[in-house]
């Protein structure tokens, strides 16, 4: 008897979960416009804040990685890095690699401000990490 009652209630809650999951988006937006939910708005603000913080953190990490890579490039030379790419990849990345051929202090600073170069250096870092893991 009790298990049966429990089973019925469990099924009812399951159904309520399913109905909630399938509710129309427009209906919810309309409801929230008519009756704003403070808890949801507070979480929305937290999400925005957290997203911005994490983005700043990621930028900082990417910058630090780029600095480390520049140091490695100086120590090992550009040819060592080229070996990590296939011939095809190398051909596509020639303009990027050329920028590294003769680096002055000023060039390094420019690289660290260049978003495209930072992106390229992220790829380089991923590749060096993969190679290190393979070793």
């Amino acid at each position, binding site marked *: 008897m009790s298990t049966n009652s429990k089973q019925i209630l469990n099924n009812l809650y399951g159904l309520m979960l399913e109905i909630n999951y399938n509710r129309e988006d427009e209906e919810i937006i309309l409801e*929230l416009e008519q009756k704003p939910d403070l808890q949801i708005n507070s979480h929305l603000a937290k999400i925005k804040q957290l997203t911005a913080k994490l983005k700043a953190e990621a930028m900082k990490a990417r910058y630090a990685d780029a600095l480390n890579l520049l140091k490695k490039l100086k120590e090992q030379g550009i040819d060592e890095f080229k070996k990590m790419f296939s011939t095809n990849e190398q051909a596509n990345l020639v303009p990027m690699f050329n920028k590294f051929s003769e680096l002055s202090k000023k060039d390094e600073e420019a690289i660290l401000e260049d978003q495209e170069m930072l992106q390229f250096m992220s790829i380089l870092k991923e590749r060096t990490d993969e190679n290190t893991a393979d070793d």
Partner: protein
Amino acid sequence: MILGPYYTNNHKRFSSVTPDDWKIVLYKCKKHIRIRLKQKTLTGAHAASTIGSDPVEYYLGSAYTKLLEGAWEWKQQYTLLEQMIRAIDSAITKQVEKHTTKKAEALRIIYRDDITDEFYVVEDDHFEPDEEQKFKEQADALHDAARGDTELEIIYEAICEGMKRADIAELLGKSPKQFDKLKEKLINKVRKSQQS
């Protein structure tokens, strides 16, 4: 603040999530947590009392934080809502299992293909005798509310059988959306009967 291993991939997907998308996900997850916790009390484990704070705040906050930080993966095949609900359910289950078993290492995430199948999973029996009476009263209230209305009686029988939303709607010859309204009618009748 530490960026998790899934930060970059998750971030790419989050960049296309609008504030309205978030509102819908947060709204549904909030309701999901409330219903899920009521369902979990059927097992005798009161997850809400073991976490020491508002359960909606706790489960909602930790789910999006872990996804945004990249500690948890936003799996490619899931929408944000599905991923959030799976993360929340997993956290609630862990909380309940920690409460009911001593083996924290037994915790696991079960990924069923259809997320809605997970909504009906029955947990082990751990409830006290006084709660048995409470469940019986609640189930009886549901039955009483359905009496005298053919459609509601069909819905009650279907709930007893454990039928899912689409199947019950088909049984009634209605669209799932029309069925949702009928189910609301049943729940409202139960609420009214409990207030009087």
